[in-house]
């Protein structure tokens, strides 16, 4: 059912780019974990890549129009692809009415990652977008309360990016130096 949904989506918005559909594996093939590393990635969840500029319009249609009726946003997250210079913003949508699911991906450049916020369409996306902003540094335009959620407000960097290197925050360095000093002078 769900791959049919992608066909409907493509018919409604020709600019979306559906995920390549993997070949159904036959019984003679070796188990998938004895795989060929060069093989194309297999998408187990149907979905499509969407241009950032059309995201809000497409999401409105996905929520309100039949046959989509995707009224539930399970999560929003990111996947960092430094070699492509991009971050993929991933949305998982689900329909509590029809019980079908869909992944949406938006590719944004790493140096200026920006997408419109869908929190006005699915309230549930609010915190998920904050988390994605916090951990990947993606700016969600139009988000009502775009603050860090996991890290402290003064944190530098976005930990789930592939090139992130952890450094102790300055207050911790100062505190340790001070404690060492106190221990040495007593």
């Amino acid at each position, binding site marked *: 059912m769900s791959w049919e949904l992608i066909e409907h989506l493509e018919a409604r918005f020709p600019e979306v780019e559906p995920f390549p559909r*993997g070949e159904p594996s036959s019984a003679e093939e070796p188990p998938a974990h004895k795989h060929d590393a060069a093989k194309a*990635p297999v998408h*187990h969840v149907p979905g499509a890549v969407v241009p950032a500029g059309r995201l809000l319009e497409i999401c409105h249609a996905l929520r309100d129009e039949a046959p989509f009726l995707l009224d539930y946003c399970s999560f929003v997250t990111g996947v960092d692809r430094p070699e492509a210079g991009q971050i993929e913003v991933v949305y998982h949508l689900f329909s*509590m009415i029809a019980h079908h699911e869909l992944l949406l991906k938006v590719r944004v450049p790493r140096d200026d990652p920006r997408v419109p916020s869908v929190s006005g369409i699915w*309230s549930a996306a609010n*915190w998920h977008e904050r988390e994605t902003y916090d951990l990947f540094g993606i700016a969600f335009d139009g988000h009502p309360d775009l603050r860090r959620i996991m890290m402290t407000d003064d944190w530098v960097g976005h930990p789930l990016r592939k090139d992130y290197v952890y450094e102790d925050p300055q207050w911790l360095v100062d505190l340790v130096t001070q404690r060492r000093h106190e221990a040495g002078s007593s």
Partner: protein
Amino acid sequence: MALRTEELMLNMGPQHPSTHGVLRLLITLDGENIVDAKPYIGYLHSSVEKMMEQRTYLQNVALADRGLDYLTALANEEAYLLAVERLGGIEAPPRARWIRTLMLELQRISSHLVWLGTWGNDLGATTVFLYCFRERERMMDLFEQATGGRLHYVYFRPGGVAQDLPAGWTDRVLEFCDEFPGHLQEYNDLLTGNPIFLARVQGVGVLSKDAAVGMGACGPVARASGVPFDVRKAFPYEAYGEVEFDVPTHDAGDCFARYLVRMEEMRQSVRIVRQAIERLPDGEVRTKVPVAVKLPRGEIYARTESPRGDLGVYLVSEGADRPYRLKVRAPSFANLYALSEMMRGWKVADVIAILGTADIVLSDVDR
């Protein structure tokens, strides 16, 4: 003469016994009425998702077990392994699938018992806490006999479970199943026979069906608001497609409905455990999977029904022996977001009662 009034900001937490973890709630009060309740989270953030990118698929079982919800370690392992096994085309033998189902339902009961006990304790019904932990202690002993661990088991492995059940173990579980419905009745008598308890929970903290879906609430919280969705029924995994059970729902959406739903879930879990023991097939409990198993390139989202709700794992593999990206969709995170909606408009004295029925675990929220 008109009185000058102003709203009061009340900080609850980060250290507060009723938050069961480290949660800060910033509550805006107009007199006694809650205008807004904003949760501040992240105090337990350990970036499990980042750590998982650096460990092999087998090592990550332990991380999924510990890094997420500490009351439902097996459910976390299941969600993680479901993603790994489906992406890698790894099949667990039938006996392992049934053992997993059995274990997951026992885990559900033990998790719900902690919820019921601590919630009762928060509301001043300390006796319930002691009764619930009496039964939970027995369950932990059962877990320990089968897996070696009491809280963190690392029992499920890629392709099955770590070891077979010990001799006589299923008989002890059946014994527990015989007694447990009587205990449930006991808790029920203690609570619903108490007019003070009923006054504090009935009609309090209502979450409407539309709000539950829109705000992403899941699991017992959503079902108590009339959303008839359970991953075990909608997308059966392990042996859930072959067992009979009912999914309790309620339309009221208040604290009492959430209580009733979880109580009924425990009864249904006993039903599943019985069927699993009855139909437990013989045979292997683990298929051969290489220690440093590599998964093919691809991506998958596997969802399971953890005791707290819709627990999903989004896994991206680039063909290596470790995940390229792993996202945990935590049910507590979603339910905590819906909390402000449940609290708005109620009295400050209801905060604890409402927070308790959301049944959040902060290590699951923060990951």
